[in-house]
């Protein structure tokens, strides 16, 4: 139906704005290969969506970008992921540093069994922020900023108004959508450069989903965003670029408009029009 692009690896992103560059990435669980030679460039301050049928490796792919696959005992990663030009799988890389720069919001909201405030403050405290009056190991240089940062993060996650009078309540007293936004606030608090979302709305109703979509639109001014989603409309609404993954292979990667109006591959079209998967 349209002119067929000979290689999906053609640069659709402009070279100078690339924040993350995935090169020849292969991933195995034990002996099963689930990601096959994927190449993908992620542009900064844009939303890149990853779509594809269940089990095609979307979560696996996105989790490698902040090395969360390290904690799966028999996962093996080969290839490169360049974050601002530096391979995060290189030998001289501090994994903890990578995760501070690349935040993650999980499919199922997973607040800590602590208060709302403590949830957002957790990452800050680990990074040496302390509450007014407290003392930190790093000499108290960030004293007193904790409250401001918690407030700012909750505002960024569009949750502040709903929780400002109950910061001491348990995070489990919040609704599902609020819990997910709390997890977003928690991820934003440490000011990462990239935020990964793995199906952040899969457990939410349309209203809560709309809120989070709106939020992601706003966040891209400050952050680079990668989102896995099962929802085609969602991908079409919020993303600038879209990657279609199937059986561990990157079938097509392009501007979202192009993918949804004139996909180069037949399978992509079949998938987004719901003819399978």
């Amino acid at each position: 139906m349209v002119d067929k692009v000979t290689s999906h690896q053609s640069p659709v992103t402009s070279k100078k704005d690339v924040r993350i560059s995935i090169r020849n990435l292969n991933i195995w669980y034990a002996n099963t290969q689930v990601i096959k030679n994927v190449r993908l460039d992620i542009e900064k301050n844009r939303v890149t969506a990853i779509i594809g049928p269940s089990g095609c490796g979307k979560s696996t792919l996105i989790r490698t970008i902040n090395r969360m696959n390290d904690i799966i005992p028999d996962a093996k990663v080969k290839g490169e992921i360049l974050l601002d030009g530096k391979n995060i799988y290189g030998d001289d890389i501090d994994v903890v540093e990578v995760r501070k720069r690349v935040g993650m919001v999980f499919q199922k909201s997973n607040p800590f069994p602590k208060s709302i405030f403590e949830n957002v403050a957790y990452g800050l405290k680990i990074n040496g922020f302390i509450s007014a009056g407290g003392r930190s190991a790093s000499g108290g240089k960030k004293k007193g900023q904790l409250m401001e940062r918690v407030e700012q993060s909750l505002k960024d996650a569009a949750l502040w108004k709903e929780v400002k009078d109950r910061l001491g309540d348990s995070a489990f007293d919040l609704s599902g959508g609020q819990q997910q936004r709390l997890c977003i606030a928690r991820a934003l608090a440490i000011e990462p450069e990239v935020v990964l979302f793995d199906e952040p709305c899969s457990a939410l109703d349309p209203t809560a989903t709309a809120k989070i979509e709106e939020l992601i639109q706003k966040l891209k001014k400050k952050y680079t965003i990668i989102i896995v989603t099962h929802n085609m409309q969602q991908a079409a609404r919020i993303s600038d670029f879209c990657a279609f993954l199937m059986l561990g292979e990157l079938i097509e990667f392009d501007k979202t408009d192009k993918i949804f109006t004139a996909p180069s591959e037949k399978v992509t079209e079949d998938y987004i029009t719901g003819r399978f998967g």
Partner: protein
Amino acid sequence: MISRKLKEYIGFGILRLATLIILLALFAILYFVAVNGIKVINWQFLTQMPHSGMTAGGILPAILGTFYLVVCAICFALPLGVAAAIYLTEYAKQGKLIRIIRIGINNLAGVPSVVFGLFGLAVFVKFFGFGISILSGGLTLGILILPTIIRASEEALLVVPQSFREASLALGATKWQTIRKVVLPNAISGMLTGSILGIGRAAGETAPILFTAVTFYTMRLPRSIFSEVQALPYHIYALMTEGTHPETQIPVAYGTALVLVFLVLGIDSIAIVIRNRFRRRKKW
């Protein structure tokens, strides 16, 4: 239809009967001990030194002795057991070696307690030269309950949702920070509950302290961890098997048994209180 109902009736009947028998046995034991022991229990019995060849006076040295032994066992076994459990579940690469270690620990739990007693005698009393003492007995009891503590702690760690760990790591926390700030606070109640139940059991053990800590009779209360002590379970054993005045010794033995039973029940109820308090807060 009738037969199915009948089957169900019989099935539940059997289960109910089994429960009833267990309860009955429990109450029979408690009743038996209480009826025979209550006669000698009074304030003096709990707070005074024995005299007249154990047939009169109190059992304070035995109560204190058991208390010291248990405290010593906890101080030794709880940190060690918890640390081992953290290592085994959180750090160690799960593989053949760890499986073998786990099997070893589980088998340790099945070793007869008198064997621990012999071990304690050979290692703590003789080899380390601690002598017959609170220290030797406490360490032996500690080793006895170590498998219980490790297993309880491992189970407590495993029920902490993996998503908590992921959330923490994804925020740039190190593994140790994650364990200290997220995993342990959520596992500590389970660890304590399981461990305390194990400790309750240790308090009533005779064999492990037989060769390592106890003496039938001392005039003095223990002055240091190198003192030998009297202990409740051994006191009962001694009253029933030694001495020359069984008619006066036997009631004292039952009184001691009653004290021991209440001590163990007391320790166990601490565990239950801790568990309930934490369970109310837990919501995942």
